[in-house]
């Protein structure tokens, strides 16, 4: 089997050795009701209510949704619409912190004895795919009876440059990751649990190997440190050799891919009853004075994280939530830390690549390196002609949005944006 090789992106894992430090409690947190894929949560508090850390403030709307818990103790200031990651409006609960960080009294570890209770517990923990996708984990783990589950792949690849929050989870929180894996093994009964880690994280591999070696049917799979090893379909293909069909789910080929931090979070919840209220965020980039890994309550404005890391340099020109390959650039530092925010980056003016796109020279690099074997330059042509039939033919709907094409393009065509807009266009045409 020929593995998907991917491409060399700079690693820039500057913060890999840095143990996360907690930032001081922010004065105000903003908790969007939609920090995940699926339906937004429904607020269950009113303006003026007193809330404590871990208290439920947003109730999940069905199974393809996730509950939201308060990350601070304080008073609900307002429930308003604020900008989301691409500028869309999202209903959010704004809580003014009292600085006490009093823990909600009602938190007790859930009783987990069977699969159903396990899934309920995962759901109640508010955990979603923390690698960036934000898909509600409980629903991901709900597999049909008919599915023969062969593999659960724990995604510790963390192939994006800069980001080290997963690395730190596998090192500092190794016990929780391992316990989560054991829970998965116990209740979902896959034939095998594999944790895939890129070989540029020797410490994480060591920690995981030590623990995994003690259990049958668990192993660590070392991956080459090439982007995008952590893309779920790529991971499934490279680990198992199975190809996920178009429009299908991973479970169609007997696989589940789950982020390692996600695993640690629900393991922690089942042990202690504390839901997802804070997370490790890598703060890095050339315009950050002292890059760090920080533990931040959800909803903290990202500006406070930058301030905690020595503030921003004057020549900051770009602020990115997420990694440099797939993250979203945002216009200001008011946006809150979301469940899926694994990194925030600030880039100096000199490092922002302002070069204008030039004409496509049809070199075929995007086509050669697309992990999904799509033809981005053709898709761009079809997009410019607004030709829906061609877009369908070129399977733009299968694009994983890994941005490999745009990264490689010598003409700096905005290919990844084309992909996303083409998908939207296709979806609108239906």
């Amino acid at each position, binding site marked *: 089997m020929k593995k998907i090789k991917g491409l060399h992106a700079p690693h820039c894992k500057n913060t890999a050795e840095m143990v996360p430090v907690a930032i001081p409690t922010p004065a105000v947190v903003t908790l969007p009701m939609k920090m995940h894929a699926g339906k937004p949560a429904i607020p269950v508090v009113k303006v003026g209510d007193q809330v404590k850390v871990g208290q439920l403030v947003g109730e999940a709307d069905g199974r393809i949704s996730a509950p939201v818990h308060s990350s601070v103790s304080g008073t609900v200031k307002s429930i308003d619409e604020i900008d989301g990651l691409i500028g869309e409006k999202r209903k959010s609960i704004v809580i003014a912190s009292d600085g006490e960080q009093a823990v909600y009294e009602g938190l007790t570890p859930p009783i987990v004895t069977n699969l159903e209770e396990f899934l309920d517990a995962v759901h109640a923990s508010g955990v979603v795919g923390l690698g960036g996708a934000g898909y509600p984990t409980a629903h991901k783990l709900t597999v049909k009876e008919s599915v023969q589950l062969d593999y659960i792949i724990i995604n510790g690849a963390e192939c994006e440059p800069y980001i080290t929050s997963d690395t730190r989870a596998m090192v500092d929180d190794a016990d929780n990751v391992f316990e989560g894996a054991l829970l998965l093994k116990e209740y979902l009964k896959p034939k095998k649990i594999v944790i895939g880690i890129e070989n540029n994280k020797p410490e994480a591999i060591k920690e995981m190997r030590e623990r995994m070696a003690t259990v049958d049917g668990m192993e660590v799979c070392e991956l080459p440190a090439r982007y995008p090893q952590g893309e779920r379909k790529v991971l499934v293909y490279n680990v198992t050799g199975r190809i996920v069909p178009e429009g299908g789910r991973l479970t169609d080929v007997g696989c589940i891919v789950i982020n390692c931090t996600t695993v640690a979070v629900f393991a922690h919840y089942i042990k202690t009853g504390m839901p997802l209220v804070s997370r490790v965020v890598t703060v890095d980039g050339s315009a950050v004075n002292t890059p760090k890994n920080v533990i931040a309550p959800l909803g903290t404005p990202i500006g406070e994280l930058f301030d905690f890391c020595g503030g921003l340099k004057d020549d900051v020109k770009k602020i990115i939530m997420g990694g440099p390959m797939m993250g979203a650039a945002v216009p200001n530092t008011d946006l809150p830390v979301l469940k899926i925010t694994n990194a925030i980056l600030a880039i100096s003016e000199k490092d*922002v690549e302002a070069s204008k796109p030039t004409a496509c020279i049809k070199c075929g690099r995007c086509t*050669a390196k697309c992990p999904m*074997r799509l*033809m981005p330059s053709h898709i761009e042509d079809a997009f410019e002609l607004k030709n829906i039939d061609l877009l369908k033919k070129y399977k733009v709907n299968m694009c994983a949005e890994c941005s490999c094409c745009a990264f490689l393009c010598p003409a700096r065509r905005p290919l990844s944006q084309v992909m996303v807009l083409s998908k939207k266009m296709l979806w609108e045409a239906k």
Partner: protein
Amino acid sequence: MNPVTVSYAPHIHNHASTSHIMRDVLIALSPALAGSVLIFGMRAAVVIFMCVASAVVFEWGYQKIMKKQETISDLSACVTGLLLAFNLPVDIPLWQAVFGSGVAIILVKQFFGGIGKNFANPALTARVVMLISFPTAMSTWAEVPNAVSSATPLELVQTGALQYMPSNLDLFLGLHGGSLGETSELALIIGGVYLIARRVITWHIPVSFIGTVYILTAILGEQPTVQLLAGGLFIGAIFMATDYPTSPQTNSGRLIFGLGCGLLTVIIRVWGNYPEGVSFAILFMNCIVPFINKLTMHHALGGKKA
């Protein structure tokens, strides 16, 4: 804080750019450049300079007049001019060389929208235009020191004057009549290896093109080694057929493309009126690239049949 930049991911790029690619091509062509000056003397340098300079001037002038974005800094005009010069005999009248550059840059490239939008290779089309326009000048070859006849080896093959045929080593080193840059296979292969090593081109087109010519001529009993080393096969296969916009984008397509080029080259060389078929072969294949692209479309990983 000043307004920050917002753009879509990715926020980093690798360092390749069009001008880097063109620079690599120029570097890869430099051994052949040195070779042509060594073999044909200073006049070769003059022709090359005229072609490159006029190509750049045409591109610059056109973009100024049409108020288009200036693209001479991407070096593609230099590459076109250099490749065109390599396809001309050393004694070509200079105005004809300039005319050729004009055809390449303006008619074939800019009229179709500039770099990347042309469907036919500019240098090659210009060569064909000149071949049709100036049949005498384009097939008058200067004496080369050490060579027995000024005719190109392929003309010798066509006319049956095989007693004048240079040795295979001379053919390989380029010590025989022919266009400026095409004679020295050694220099061209060095350039080709450099391009493949720098991943500017893949091996598919050169190998399938040259391989097809070799195998077919061997089958037809037409002196495969001479067919390989004489004429413009190597410059065509390594530098012309691999031109990005005018060749297929997938590796399987590139194999088919090379195969077709090889086949047509042999047909024209063996049976056609022209002694040299590489240019016509590549030009014809350029025209059917859209179909090769259609035929060799990638099948998406796990994609359903449409």
